[in-house]
């Protein structure tokens, strides 16, 4: 265990996985008039990219032989379903952060509350986040938590190569390759799909998760400034949501006979070369 101040007290890891409940992607429909998402009747699932963080956490615990993994979610009461799914996959417990005052939070206000909750959880070695949520698509909450807690952060991690002496070796995907980062724990790591293939929840896990008590924290349970919460505490505003119009530039080649075929092929090759596709 490593205190937030860096002192090592034991080897078993304590990991927090912040997760988000999102609408099931295939079921998402848009209200054409208002340009907003229709959430009614749409199934909610654990953000698919968070499943990779859950799996990475489980593999870390297995590699260490022992440890505790806590799932954390800020959302309405029904977000407890996402926490139960995480427990069914093998996490030890879940904490729900639910308060009407949290509603409408942007990434700044969300990471603020999550960081406050993590602080309240006490000693934490590793905070594993999915790269981004499939609904908001910002990828800012993980680094936001790191900023609030003043912890190092490694983003786009596609593999964990090792852990020794409180240092986690992460394979961070960058354009055209990867970087190997030695990250001093405690730290925040945001993972991408390559990190691990998520396991499915088991029958025994489901039974355990159904019996698990999911404590709910409100703003009153956390050491937070009221003015930093929810919509009021959010510096960003969604001004407009719209479907981007896709303007495809199409070029049609119509060789009239075989003699023009070669010319058309040359044009296609030239086009593909220009786009750096061949």
């Amino acid at each position: 265990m490593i205190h937030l101040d860096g002192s090592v007290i034991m080897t078993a890891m304590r990991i927090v996985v912040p997760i988000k409940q999102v609408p099931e992607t295939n079921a998402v429909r848009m209200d054409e008039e208002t340009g907003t998402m229709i959430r009614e009747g749409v199934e909610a699932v654990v953000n698919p990219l968070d499943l990779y963080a859950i799996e990475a956490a489980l593999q870390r615990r297995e590699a260490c032989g022992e440890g505790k993994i806590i799932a954390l979610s800020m959302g309405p009461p029904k977000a407890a379903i996402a926490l139960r799914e995480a427990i069914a996959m093998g996490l030890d417990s879940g904490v729900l952060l639910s308060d009407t005052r949290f509603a409408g939070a942007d990434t700044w206000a969300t990471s603020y509350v999550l960081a406050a909750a993590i602080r309240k959880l006490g000693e934490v070695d590793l905070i594993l986040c999915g790269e981004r949520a499939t609904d908001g698509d910002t990828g800012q909450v993980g680094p936001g938590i790191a900023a609030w807690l003043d912890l190092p952060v490694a983003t786009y991690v596609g593999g964990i190569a090792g852990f020794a002496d409180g240092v986690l070796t992460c394979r961070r995907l960058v354009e055209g390759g990867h970087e190997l980062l030695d990250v001093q724990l405690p730290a925040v790591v945001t993972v991408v799909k390559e990190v691990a293939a998520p396991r499915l929840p088991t029958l025994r896990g489901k039974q355990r998760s159904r019996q698990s008590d999911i404590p709910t924290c409100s703003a009153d349970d956390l050491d937070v400034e009221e003015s930093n919460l929810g919509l009021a505490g959010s510096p960003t505003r969604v001004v407009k949501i719209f479907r981007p119009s896709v303007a495809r530039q199409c070029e049609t080649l119509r060789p009239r006979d075989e003699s023009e075929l070669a010319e058309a092929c040359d044009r296609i090759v030239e086009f593909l070369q220009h786009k750096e596709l061949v």
Partner: protein
Amino acid sequence: MNESSFNPVTDTIVDELRDIVGPSYVVYGDADKLQPYSHDEIPDRHYAHMPDVLARPRTAEDIAAVMKLANRDRIAVTPRGAGSGLSGGAVPIHGGIVLLCDRMNEILEVDEANMMLVAEPGVVTAEINERLAGTGLFYAGYPMSLETCSLGGNVAENAGGGKAVKYGVTSRYVLGLEVVTPTGEIVQLGGKLIKDVTGYSLVPLMLGSEGTLGIFTKITLKLSPAPRSSVDLLALFKTAEDAIAAVPTIMTEGGIVPTAIEFIDRNAVKLACDYLNETLPYQDAGAMLLLTCDGPTTEQVEREYEAIGEQCLAAGGIEVYVADNATTTERIWSVRRNIAEAAALLGEHQANEDLVVPPAAIAELVLGLEAISRKHDVFMPAYGHAGDGNIHTRIIKRPETSIEDWQAALPGVLREVYTLTARLGGRISGEHGIGHKRKAHMGQFVSEAYLDLCRSLKKAWDPNGVLNPGKIFDL
């Protein structure tokens, strides 16, 4: 009646077809464009045959006019849906005209008061439930190819699929059909009636008739209340024997009818997982069962899946995974649905079998298939609808086996597979149909008296033998 004495399609006939369906909806004289209509999804191209002409009708009247023309000039007509069949039902083995129903693709009516739906044959099966979303109703047919197959083909083959344990096969839901007869009459069979004994029940006769007795132009389907909760279990077993032995126990001892019980052996799982880049932990498992429970409330479904999951563990299951949301459910079912596609990539030298036995004999069938596979050293992934007694196996040429050795060995393997199936009281096809692919083996499973009845029926309805000739049995 000599089936091989059809007349060729002439330019004059093509002009007539253009007049009937519209000039842009006839393909003629272009082998590249006609080639896709020469085969279905049978990997072995030996079963393919080119059509002379493709016509794409829009109405029942179009089809009636084509059938009259075909009878007048004795030209073979082969109706075709999405071409996802596995027995050659849509293959024009005598050339002639292929009637493609893809333009007839409207859902004509959703009748919520009667809980029924009327659709044209070219509607893709999966579109039906997409259309019904939000009505609280659903269509219970679930063929494995539902994203590509069309309703007309489902009716023609009496498609089964993954949820037949609880919901039955296509025939349970077809209440009415508008049919163009082989001689070109348009006739209404059945209708929006739950009960109807006004004369012979001809709707059931059309179900599974493989396009030999008529072409469906409107299909009235019975809908059901949509389950509000559905959970899938994926149970891993050490051996295929353990897995398949659990099936009769689940079916008879738990007092619960699951929606689906699919068996997938290790070879089949590996094929699909490699194809999908899926990482299910199948490495230690000899076989898997995929089980579904659905119902009106979460609580009921929870009770049922837990009871069935416990039965799997008690029967020696290594692990039981639970999928209760769209992400995990799709992950599990896509493995099952993609086995056929993954196997098809292994080349055309394979026989895709569709064996069906009384449900209690399923274990004996699966273990018998394993023994045949070992004895002949052939690659035979097995998978399918274990709860219905319907197992698919593909007998696939290994890359190292020469084509000559393969061709010499396959008939012997098939003979043993069919003999085993017959001994268990089974039949040669549960849901894929006979087509021209399996018709030579019909005699092993049905009596000559039965075949004579079928022949006299076919001759009475199709005196010139022009509609989908050469399928199911020889005249």
